């Protein structure tokens, strides 16, 4: 079974993976499932998003439905159909 989520990427990550990606994922899915799909889009670019162990770099901000997801195991956060998952690098506004 597959379900859809919407992935959004900003700034450098938008350039690497695209701004908005409608993704069909094998279900049940976690944030890690999204990372695997992003690797298919840009295998070389993934190194800017994850560390050598495949976990999101600490500098990467992850949001699900516009809520910041914190904690060491945030890649294992389960997804619900229709979720909006956003990735962005450290901010530099103002």
């Amino acid at each position, binding site marked *: 079974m597959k379900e859809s989520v919407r992935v959004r990427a900003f700034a*450098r990550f938008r350039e690497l993976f695209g701004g908005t990606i409608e993704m069909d994922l094998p279900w049940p899915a976690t944030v890690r499932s999204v990372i695997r799909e992003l690797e298919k889009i840009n295998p070389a670019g993934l190194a800017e998003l994850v560390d050598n162990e495949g976990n999101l770099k600490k500098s990467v901000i992850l949001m699900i439905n516009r809520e910041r997801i914190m904690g060491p195991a945030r890649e294992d956060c389960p997804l619900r159909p229709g979720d909006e998952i*956003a990735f962005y690098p450290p*901010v530099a506004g103002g």
Partner: protein
Amino acid sequence: MIQITGEDFDPGAFIEGARKRGTGAVVSFLGIVRDDGIERMEVEAFEEVARSDLSVIAGEAMEKFQVQHVDIIHRVGSLRVGENIVLIVVGAGHRKAAFLACEYIIDRIKEYVPIWKKEYANGESRWVRGDHAGEVTGKSERKKLVRQ
């Protein structure tokens, strides 16, 4: 007023708008594209989240420093040297609270709100380094400059 806009704005109009009964001080901060040898910059935002974050920060400043009025206007899009990037206007009974609130707001914007800048010069571009990971993970890794 909290606004993320592709249009320029008139700082004077916002400063005038901050006057209320009981206002004794209006402090403003205007961020401008500096001539660091660049031709222009692109400002990008996760607009829905940025707008919401700016509202929260304005509310925090009003409560923390007991100020009466806060405007935050942030541009997005392509900006040339000398153009306005961000305006913060704080109205308060006394100057100290207005200064402190204004500084608090710009500091919080720089460390938390999803907005990024990319600078263009001599056919090259680079993302302005963000030193903060939005206070999500504590220490942040410094993002390396990307040249294209």
